[in-house]
């Protein structure tokens, strides 16, 4: 039963990693850029929500919605102002720009909100469920997390697969030149893509911030970025479904190692898992392109 419990709670954490992974995958797929600033961006939007809820007495839902909108705007602005000008340059340039943005956002957050830790109270209870006398490592708050992330994923799926704008977004991602010849305003859709990705990231930030007292501070989300990256790589980096599967897998593995080896090594495991995956299957465990590339 403990094992099953660990799998359940690991998977619940993994859903959040999946959301971060999805934010990375959406941008990677459309621009071939890995957004290292994603951790900083979702940290910043989470702080905005926290500021509203805890310093200005706003309702939790207001905070959440504002964080999502802030993510949308932040993502769009980042694409327009920072990414657009370096398009077509050496591939190392976006890596450095997004890392620079990570440093900048963490520093600015530290300037505004200080570098100490703060707590973001969750909207739902963190007390675990019981089935009969048996404790299940799953709480109403985690139920909300799972539903919220899955809901967003379904919404994005519908948007991408079943709407004209989704078709345009995919066309611009896969073949921008042909898309332009067909009248698609590729630039705008890239901006929208960054906005949507950052919005998913913002959701992950607010959700995970509530799971532990004292979670948030400007550097607290570095680990989440790496976990999300690992999940994305496990899933093949270009597949949204892979991101979900990767997130769940990483969450479960992390929980098992934390429990059976030691929680002190948490961030070291992430490195090991990433290393093992990249050595065994550099294109991810679930990637379709793996087949194509071979």
């Amino acid at each position, binding site marked *: 039963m403990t094992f099953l419990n660990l799998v359940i709670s690991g998977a619940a954490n993994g859903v959040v990693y999946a959301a971060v992974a999805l934010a990375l995958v959406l941008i*990677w797929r459309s621009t071939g*850029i*890995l957004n*290292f600033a994603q951790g900083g961006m979702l940290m910043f939007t989470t702080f905005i929500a926290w500021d509203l809820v805890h310093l200005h007495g706003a309702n939790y839902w207001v905070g959440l919605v504002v964080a999502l909108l802030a993510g949308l705007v932040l993502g769009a602005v980042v694409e327009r102002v*920072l990414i657009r*000008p*370096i398009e077509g*340059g*050496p*591939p*190392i*340039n976006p*890596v*450095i*720009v997004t*890392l*620079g*943005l*990570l*440093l*900048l*956002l*963490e*520093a*600015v957050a*530290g*300037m505004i909100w*200080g*570098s100490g830790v703060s707590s973001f109270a969750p909207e739902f209870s963190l007390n675990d469920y019981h089935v009969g006398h048996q404790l299940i490592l799953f709480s109403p708050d985690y139920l909300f997390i799972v539903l919220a992330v899955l809901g967003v994923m379904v919404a994005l799926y519908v948007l991408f697969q079943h709407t004209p704008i989704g078709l345009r977004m995919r066309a611009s991602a896969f073949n921008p030149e042909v898309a332009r010849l067909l009248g698609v305003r590729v630039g705008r859709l890239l901006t929208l893509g960054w906005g949507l990705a950052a919005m998913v990231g913002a959701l992950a930030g607010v959700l995970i911030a509530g799971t532990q007292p004292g979670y948030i501070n400007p*550097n607290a989300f*570095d*680990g989440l*970025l*790496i976990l999300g*990256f*690992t999940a994305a*790589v496990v899933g093949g980096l270009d597949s949204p479904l892979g991101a979900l599967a990767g997130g769940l897998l990483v969450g479960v593995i992390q929980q098992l190692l934390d429990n059976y080896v*030691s929680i*002190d*090594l*948490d*961030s*070291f*495991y*992430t*490195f*090991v898992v*990433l*290393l093992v995956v*990249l*050595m065994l299957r*550099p294109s991810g465990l679930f990637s379709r392109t793996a087949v194509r590339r071979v």
Partner: protein
Amino acid sequence: MSLLRRSTLLRNGLLALCGLGIMLAVTEGLSDYRNTQLANIAVTVCAVAGLTVLTGLSGQISLGNGAFMFVGAYTVGLLLMHNPGTNNGELVLVLAASALVAAVAGGLVGVAAARLRGPYLAGITLALALGLPALPEYSHFQGKLGGHAGLNFLAPNPPGGMNFFRWQAWVCLIGAVVTLFLLANLSRSRVGRAFRAVRDDEISASLAGLSVARVQILAFTVSAACAGLAGGLFAVINGNVLPSGFPISLSLSLLAAAVFGGLGTLSGAVYGSIIVTLLPQWSYDLAHAFSMPDRVQLNLPQAVYGAGLILGMLLFPLGIQGGVRRIWALGRNALRTKPAGN
């Protein structure tokens, strides 16, 4: 004279000796505080020079050189803690050990890195930078590695009653000059050419008979050794090492320094290190002049690193030196074409 021109080894050696002599003489007139700053710059130069060779010459990115500094620092920490009374001659061996252990770690990571490109490599080295400093906190290692509180130890006493801070500056300057000297020769040598060939075009490099993977692993090893030495020097001048002394932002500030100076140039590594090391002090002064709150002042340097990385890429996609060189070339061409146009 012609011998000098032909032998880069000799020329670099003389240059290094002259530079070292001047700097060591200069430390005499500096305050303790300035000597400490000089020591810190020299430490940063070691790490940044290694990174700039890796990223600028061999074309691989590493966001994890802070982790190799961590390895070097803990190597020195452990050796000095268990060997109290180490003298200055033995310190050379201790520092060499820090470079060596980090080189081994770098070689291991390099094996993985050689199979990875661009963002994958960036991601895994970032994971390394975050994950490795967690090791001392592991309960089974806590006894040996000191856990959260880190390691405390005594560095050797300065020889012949020399001023302590001046001695620190000496040790670090010698370390930095030796590093620069070796890297300068390396980059001029066959190995350096191999680095560049692999960076410019892996396929034609391998067609030319180079083992791309081996070249890339070597570059990683060299870079890690430099970072390890930097970490070792860092430990020596601080007298302690802490897991929290090696955050991700350390690795990223090394990258910032390399980018500020122009990726791939050793002189750029020096400029970049000076900027990155002095920035916290400047921001402190600035914050005091404008009486900013502490939290602003404390975060100002990092904000400048971040903004600097971004602006550097937007304004000078080839690095500041590349940019300066381009402006220089433009000016020269303008001068050259003018008479022809008239």
